[in-house]
């Protein structure tokens, strides 16, 4: 009887091991699979982008542009000192910083907003060759996504770069009239690709 129970136990353990191994192999068969995730890094990045883009659109259109056009409140780059709303790009960046603060995320992703015409000059220093390639790709293709991989320090990342288009007047008006803009910066208008959302997911 004991032998029978032992044999059943071993069979169950083997079955669990086979199923588990199969599951991991399936999810990792794509070399870009994120550790422990059931989605590929690209699927995860695409999904994150949908959320980021939607939230950003609502904030820019329904809060910033609407309240400004109704004369209720005008956003300002120095929003704390001026006791007003954050600009849409600042809202996006603050959200990214809050995400960076969350410890032990199931997938330690990060994101940022980048542009080949940065008003904050230091942002250009952060742009890796892959990011520059992706931002240029978005412009050349009028808004196609770009995917790649890069290594920062000892960590390899999947990287997704998504077009950031001018959706609200607050975006292009601020950029076109900013004291930091250089003479060779474009005069943006609605629908232009102004930059890109960069999403990084650690792999391997």
């Amino acid at each position, binding site marked *: 009887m004991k032998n029978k129970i032992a044999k059943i136990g071993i069979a169950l353990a083997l079955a669990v091991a086979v199923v588990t191994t199969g599951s991991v192999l399936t999810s990792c068969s794509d070399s870009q699979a994120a550790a422990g995730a059931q989605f590929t890094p690209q699927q995860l990045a695409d999904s994150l982008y949908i959320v980021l883009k939607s939230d950003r659109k609502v904030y820019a259109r329904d809060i910033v542009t609407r309240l400004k056009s109704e004369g209720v409140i005008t956003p*300002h*780059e*120095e929003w*704390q*000192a*001026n006791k007003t709303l954050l600009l849409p790009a600042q809202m996006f960046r603050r959200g*990214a*910083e*809050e995400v*960076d*603060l969350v410890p032990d995320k199931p997938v330690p992703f*990060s994101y*940022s907003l980048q542009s080949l015409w940065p008003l904050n*000059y*230091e942002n*250009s*220093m*952060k*742009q*890796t060759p892959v*990011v520059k390639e992706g931002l240029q790709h978005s412009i050349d293709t009028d808004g196609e996504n770009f995917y790649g991989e890069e290594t*920062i*320090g000892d*960590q390899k*990342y999947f990287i997704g770069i998504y077009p950031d288009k001018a959706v609200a007047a607050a975006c292009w008006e601020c950029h076109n*009239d900013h*004291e930091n803009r*250089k*003479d060779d910066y474009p*005069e943006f208008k609605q629908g232009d690709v102004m930059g890109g959302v*960069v999403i*990084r997911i650690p792999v391997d």
Partner: protein
Amino acid sequence: MSLFAASKRPIWIWAGVTLLLAGYLTWVFFAKEDKRELLPGITTDGHHQIEQRCDVCHDSEPVDGLFTSSGVSNKACMECHKQDLELANDSHPVIKFRNPENAIFLEHIKATDCVTCHAEHLEDRTHPMAVTIPPDYCAHCHDVTLEHRETHEGLAFNSCETAGCHNFHDNLSLFESFLSEHLAEPAVLPEPKRELSKAVYRWISAGNERPPSTTPDAPADRIASAPEHVADWASTAHAAAGVNCSDCHGKGAAWQDKPAIESCATCHTLETQDFRKGKHGMRLAVDLSPMEPSMARLPMKPEMAHESLDCTSCHGAHRFDREYAAAEACMQCHDDDHTNNFSASPHFALWNAELNGKAPAGTGVSCATCHLPRETRTDSTSGTKVEVVQHNQNANLHPNEKMYRGVCMNCHGLGFTMDSLADRKLIENNFNGKPEVHVESLDWVREVEERREAHRKKIESSN
């Protein structure tokens, strides 16, 4: 044989002295309350008062049984400095450097650790603001700005902070749109902003309204032995707000002749919290004896050397004279040029006129007007606003640009303010004269505005 014994003697003496010394240092390390003998170097002005409490800063868990190079965590720094950084809208919080794309910056300066720039016990390497890295640190990440901003062309890499234009943490008054907004202000504003204390209203509005007290509830023997205390109390806002003797001294067997700061903290919570963050109260915050002027590194009057500092040191007991606390209390201990020149300053003339009833309330400028200013604070979670007197007199001292918005600009234009606070001689003589130093920031902003206007016109004409 005798030669051998003689040659051994110095070794035994050396071994004995070594053992004694090791034993003594072990006792200091593990058992002695004051551990200053173990300090590896002179502590900065900001921390010297609490240097015998090593554990307050060196709090990190050991790694593999050993402490890291300093054993000081960000958490230890933030225990005391968090609120200041939040109020200053810290320009370089750790949160900004977590994204992997900042690796290029962190290669140069690990800005995620406070001790990267603020190491301790390194007197020969310590610059103003307790910075212990070379003063060109801004350039590691911001040299691109020096390249692209015409107004910044040719500036030295170490001039960002030293020119009075930028700070690493607090730039509340130094950003371009703020400078632009205050470009053309006169030295003295036509309508100075007046702030009056509202502590008692805050206390009452928190649900503490009581009828005024007219009869003291102290034990009869205490009243009989100190009738002057009762008279002082009866004239105060405490009596008017129904705060009686037992509210501070305790009731019955719990009566204390000299109530501790905790008694004041029952109602003046924010004030006592702030007090413990400044040089006057920081020792109390880490359970050390109260600060005494003899412990200070600034010049103090010798006759006050061993007076303990608590709430009553400045406010006095029973009368709680705010006018005394606002100026005379400071001058009873401080003995530096700035303090000693106050009574000959234009600020004092205004203060004196207010005290003598020759000018409206709130128009005088005392020590407290600048160093313990009235503030409106907003709770970030509830959004509730509170009016409070900042009782950490160090909160706006370093860098002194912190005084622009909350203090000087209540009465003065920005240009005059910037030049005055950059003029060390003018500060020493307590602002008796005009600034002889000029900070160029406003000139550069004018230049940028002119260029922007030209750009706008160019776009309009091309359309």
